[in-house]
């Protein structure tokens, strides 16, 4: 039997451990990223990560140790200095946040690269192995590293659970939260601290250059699927975790492929799928909604044209393509295409001598025309608009009114204004039943 597990090396304890570490990184990144993105702090995460690089190098130079806690401590120090510097620049000068982030990010990163190069040169070859902090090397994680990461991740998740309500209110309505007596500084500091920790957890496996993507991408992808913060946080954690583990696994299939870029590519793939196919917020769903609206409007217009032609002609049809083109102002192609679509809906019949509405088509067409005309009457009688200004608003509303709104409209117009609403649409008489809105008052109708 085909042994799937052994092909994937999943029975290997080291591989399992590395995958677990990557999963942790992705999950914490996704969860915290949701808050960071909604708070508008995603670029701050990027600056933080880049500013961590000189800290890694300095910690190594100072202690000579490559153990993860030591390097992370160094990274955290310079990372925080970078963030404070950005805040200092934006509060004390007229430089805007994006420029300040740009300055700090590049300077710290540049210093980090110089230090790294110095370390590589002074030691023989690649011995220091600190370059993995650039693009990430998940395979370099040892059990102790994963243990440290596990503790940090658990801490982050526990704090998020405890401060969830405070974070939510801080991001949605900080003034209100403050008015309730909560200290904005404290809540914001806690959130910023967690973002720092999250970046540090992922530093080794994802690298300083790309870790921001593990904050931003899963969160933005998750937002497409939900309208609730707690669902978004959970979903972003899942998307991040899947990206982390899958990315690590894929990058391990070829020698010396850094993990960070592959993780980011997987996360981006999930983001693209979300952006395209998510219900409601997704691009496809939006397109389908708009398309359905356009088609409904065209159907209504064609049926309305048939009704109005019938009123003038005093017979139900049929009417030629040319007559419909003149009535609607459409090209021949569109008239034919829409007529065929309506035939599929059994709303019209097509013959060589033209288009004729079926009873179903007449019913819907009459409804639309009635909506249009009664809405015009309503606008005029309520003195909302002058008689020569009502056609366009009625055009928009006729597609949206529902049967019960129309019923109420009929009731109001019949009761308050004595309009015989049954005769507003009349395709069998001489057309005398309908007088446009405003006529009764002797106003000019344009």
């Amino acid at each position, binding site marked *: 039997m085909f042994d799937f597990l052994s092909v994937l090396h999943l029975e290997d304890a080291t591989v399992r451990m590395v995958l677990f570490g990557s999963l942790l990184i992705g999950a914490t990144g996704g969860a915290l990223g949701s808050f960071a993105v909604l708070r508008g702090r995603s670029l701050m995460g990027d600056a933080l990560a880049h500013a961590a690089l000189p800290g890694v190098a300095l910690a190594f130079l100072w202690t000579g140790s490559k153990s993860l806690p030591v390097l992370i401590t160094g990274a955290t120090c310079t990372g925080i200095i970078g963030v404070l510097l950005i805040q200092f620049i934006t509060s004390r000068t007229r430089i805007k946040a994006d420029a300040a982030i740009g300055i700090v990010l590049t300077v710290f990163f540049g210093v980090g690269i110089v230090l790294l190069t110095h370390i590589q040169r002074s030691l023989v070859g690649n011995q220091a192995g600190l370059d993995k902090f650039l693009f990430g090397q998940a395979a370099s994680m040892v059990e102790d590293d994963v243990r440290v990461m596990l503790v940090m991740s658990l801490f982050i998740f526990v704090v998020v659970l405890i401060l969830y309500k*405070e974070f939510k209110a801080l991001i949605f309505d900080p003034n209100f*939260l*403050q008015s309730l007596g909560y200290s904005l500084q404290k809540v914001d500091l806690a959130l910023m601290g967690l973002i720092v920790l999250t970046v540090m957890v992922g530093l080794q496996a994802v690298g300083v250059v790309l870790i921001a993507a593990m904050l931003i991408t899963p969160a933005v992808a998750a937002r497409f699927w939900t309208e609730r913060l707690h669902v978004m946080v959970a979903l972003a954690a899942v998307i991040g975790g899947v990206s982390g583990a899958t990315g690590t696994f894929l990058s391990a299939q070829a020698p010396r492929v850094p993990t960070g870029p592959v993780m980011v590519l997987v996360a981006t793939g999930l983001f693209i799928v979300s952006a395209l196919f998510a219900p409601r917020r997704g691009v496809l769903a939006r397109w389908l909604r708009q398309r359905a609206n356009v088609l409904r409007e065209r159907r209504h217009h064609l049926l309305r044209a048939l009704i109005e032609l019938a009123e003038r002609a005093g017979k139900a049809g049929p009417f030629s393509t040319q007559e419909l083109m003149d009535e609607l102002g459409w090209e021949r192609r569109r008239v034919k295409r829409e007529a065929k679509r309506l035939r599929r809906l059994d709303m019209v019949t097509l013959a060589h001598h033209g288009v004729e509405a079926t009873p179903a088509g007449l019913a819907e067409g009459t409804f639309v025309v009635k909506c249009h005309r009664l809405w015009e009457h309503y606008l005029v009688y309520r003195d909302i608009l002058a008689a020569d200004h009502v056609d366009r608003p009625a055009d928009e509303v006729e597609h949206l009114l529902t049967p019960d709104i129309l019923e109420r409209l009929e009731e109001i117009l019949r009761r308050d204004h004595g309009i015989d609403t049954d005769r507003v649409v009349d395709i069998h008489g001489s057309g005398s039943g309908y007088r446009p809105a405003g006529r009764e008052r002797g106003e000019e109708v344009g």
Partner: protein
Amino acid sequence: MSDQSPTPVGDQSPTPGEDTSAEPAAPAIQLLPDVDPDKIPIRIHDMTIAYHRKPVLWDVDLDVPEGKLVGIVGPNGAGKSTMILAIMNLVPKASGWARIYGKPYEEMRRIVGYVPQRESVDWDFPISAHEVVTMGRYGHVGWFRRPSRQDKQIASEALDKVGMAEYADRQISQLSGGQQQRVFLARALAQDAKVYLMDEPFAGVDAATEAAIIDILMELRAQGKTILVVHHDLQTVTRYFDWVIMLNTRVVASGPTEEVFNDTTLNKTYGGRLTVLSQAAQAVQDYETGRA
């Protein structure tokens, strides 16, 4: 302020807070010196607030009587929103203080409800109407703890009160402007306060919502609560408010609407009457920017 036309006036008074124009029959700024300070819902004393040394509120002395529906009117940039924030001690003051029933806001915030401006938040935030209203309970819930079932029940009742019960689970961007404003009002109701501070609750709402909101405000007043409302529509001031505060950086008038809301005070609030102050502000700004 600086956009006001510098009409030349004979007023050369060195103290900008001093009132030098013709005195109206009733005192334009009515304080309540005979009332026990612990019975005054909002008292502001000698308060000046400046952003980057540009004055936003200048020498404000105010008393707001209990159980009244109070309107704050004034042109854009007159400091109306700042005054609301200042009452809650959310902006740094250059001088002076505000008290709620004779005590600092920090001691009294549980009896104060707040409705911020609708534009001040991101309505695309992934949150439901009911969750927003539940935030009104956070002051009672306190740090680290979760809103209880009772808090959620209070939020549901508040939503019901503003006629939004059926929209409780809607994401807030799927609500109309008027519905969003009702959600904010419901959140303040959920705070279960005695003093309400509302920043333009009528901005961008339809006529039906405006009527519904004013009904609720009048009901609150009938329960003896004090409601301070930043308002823009001068047409409705006499109809809605018992007491009006007319503001243009400093207080032009404060008193019963029928006594102080008239052409004289309106001209002083909206006309270019505060030229000395504007000039001083401009001078300070020019100095700051190095143009002087």
